[in-house]
């Protein structure tokens, strides 16, 4: 038995729309098998993963959970929207985690070093600094790629470790709160440096989620309605054609990395100025890497990414509720997310190819065809 791919003359619109759902379905099946192997009732596990965090939709008592969902989804969507532009233009930025941390660190400069500076302008400055920090950190692999032809995958990833260690040093060293006992972390931000909540009555979701939605719509508009979006797609699919059209490959590398770096940086500063309220050593739960999955699950389309970001945020919350309710390890979340990306990539094959499963050896089918 072999599997043979037959290229479709045109990509299948049906599977284009269907493949993310197919992938989700397969992930649920694989997840159910995984939970059974762990000795848990798979239906209970999947209920706590995907339904329990959503009970807030109809139950006002649990409305806070929807806020938590928005809090988790905000950085995922912000980062993934930026990454989609990178991946569309064939720039493999996998260091969003580092740009996220860089944004958080640079954005924290004002509230940490100038705690006395209290004015309404502090927060906008922090957000701008966060974006600048993320963009500057993203510019490093871009510069190396353009100037020295260095592989951006490896440099952007190495910079993640550097950023994590640098942040760790800051919050345990020169930026540590002297009154924080021996816990690593900076002083708590003043009220002017805190990102306001959207509806404080029912939960603590902050404006980062709104930024994420705005970013998604803005990038969607850019990609589908402007020349810049066309440039991104042309240079990504055929650099040669792009050159003939007069588009600059080098400038596109910078554009993609600066944009995704800025959005990751914004996600970083929103995370520390929002739910965490100070800078510490564990500001990210792997958002930068999970956002890669979000970008692909959303089929690199900013609007699809909003939906994908909510789904991946759900797995984080579901992981917590499943751990509390039935004792499934919180480590299962990462395995779950990894499986999801695998299925997404596998299902995308159906868009461009028809898959045929051939039972008889190839030679015999050839003969049979001749005889017939």
């Amino acid at each position, binding site marked *: 038995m072999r599997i043979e*791919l037959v290229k479709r003359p045109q990509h299948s619109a049906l599977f284009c729309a269907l493949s993310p759902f197919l992938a989700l379905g397969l992930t649920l099946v694989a997840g159910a098998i995984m939970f059974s192997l762990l000795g848990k009732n798979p239906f209970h596990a999947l209920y706590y993963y995907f339904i329990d965090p959503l009970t807030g939709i109809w139950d006002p008592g649990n409305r806070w959970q929807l806020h938590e969902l928005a809090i988790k989804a905000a950085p995922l969507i912000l980062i993934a929207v930026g990454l989609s532009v990178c991946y569309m233009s064939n720039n493999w930025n996998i260091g969003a985690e580092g740009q996220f941390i860089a944004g958080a660190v640079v954005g924290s400069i004002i509230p940490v070093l100038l705690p006395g500076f209290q004015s309404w302008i502090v927060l906008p400055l922090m957000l701008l600094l966060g974006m600048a920090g993320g963009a500057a950190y993203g510019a490093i692999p871009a510069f190396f790629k353009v100037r020295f032809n260095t592989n951006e995958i490896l440099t952007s990833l190495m910079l993640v470790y550097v950023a994590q260690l640098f942040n760790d040093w800051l919050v345990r060293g020169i930026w540590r709160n002297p009154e924080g006992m021996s816990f690593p972390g900076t002083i708590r931000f003043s009220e002017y440096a805190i990102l306001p909540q959207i509806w404080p009555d029912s939960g603590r979701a902050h404006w980062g989620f709104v930024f994420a939605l705005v970013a998604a719509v803005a990038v969607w508009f850019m990609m589908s309605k402007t020349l810049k979006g066309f440039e991104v797609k042309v240079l990504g699919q055929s650099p040669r054609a792009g050159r003939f059209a007069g588009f600059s490959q080098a400038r596109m590398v910078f554009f993609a990395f600066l944009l995704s770096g800025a959005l990751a940086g914004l996600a970083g500063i929103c995370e520390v100025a929002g739910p965490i309220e100070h800078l510490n050593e564990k500001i990210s739960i792997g958002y930068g890497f999970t956002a890669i999955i979000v970008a692909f699950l959303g089929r690199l389309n900013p609007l699809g990414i909003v939906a994908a970001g909510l789904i991946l945020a759900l797995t984080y919350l579901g992981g917590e509720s499943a751990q509390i309710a039935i004792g499934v390890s919180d*480590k299962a979340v990462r*395995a779950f997310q*990894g499986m999801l990306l695998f299925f997404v*990539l596998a299902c995308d094959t159906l868009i461009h190819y028809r898959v045929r499963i051939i039972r008889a050896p190839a030679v015999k089918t050839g003969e049979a065809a001749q005889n017939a």
Partner: protein
Amino acid sequence: MLEQIIITIATAATPLLIAAIGELVVERSGVLNLGVEGMMIMGAVSGFGVALTTGSPWLGVFAAIIVGALFSLLFGFLTLTLVTNQVATGLALTLLGVGLSGMIGETLVGQPGVKLENIYIPGLTELPFVGKLFFGQDPIFYISIVLTFAVAWFLFKTRAGLTLRSVGDNHGSAHALGINVIGIRYLAVMFGGACAGLAGGFLSLVYTPQWIENMSAGRGWIALALVVFASWRPLRVLAGAYLFGAVSIGQLHAQALGIGIPSQLLSALPYLATIIVLVLISRNRRLTMINTPASLGRPFVPDR
């Protein structure tokens, strides 16, 4: 003293060397597998788990190799049979490996480890200066050296090696010559997986004989960088791995001496060194162009 330093450098270099040699073969066949980190950590957790339950470190090593190879098959099936994007699939393999290993290894955290003992040859191991270095290290060290030369010989001195390189340089022509491109790539990917698994097993059975989540700490990525650094040549991988081993041991010694530089910044040195080395090596555009397997990362669907 000097001998001791060289031995510690060798211990730090061995996992990088093994994983990079495996990835070198994969890339020579034209496939870019970014999942080294994931295969490595899966090898580490399964090697440790099997050694702990059976009490035999050798069974652990064996399990690490098998699991690494099987895990790489997942990548192989997607990229070779379903022709998915190799970069994205490799990333997926790493994310899945890190997640799965954390889950599998949860009960293993804090368990006493089983160490693969260093070899001891009466008479030879006691030799001054060179005895411990040549006759008293862990068995995987010797495997790594033999592996490097075996791969160099295979790639450049055998017909099968030539076939593998031809697949990596021009899969269209290789296919036209009747070479089974996909089959060869499957074998190469599995060899890479087995090597990454062995490297992971080395970490949890020799380097620090215990299970710590994320214990590969980016070594899989450094191994990938080493392949580029070595411009796809096995003996240069050997040199590169020992250079990186020296950097990471150097920073550990500097931390122990307490020379006033914060430990986190010293820990960042191997990663910074990787970036610098990559930049220096890729500056020479012609050199990289000549050595890069021409079909690296390009999808292949046989026309019928």
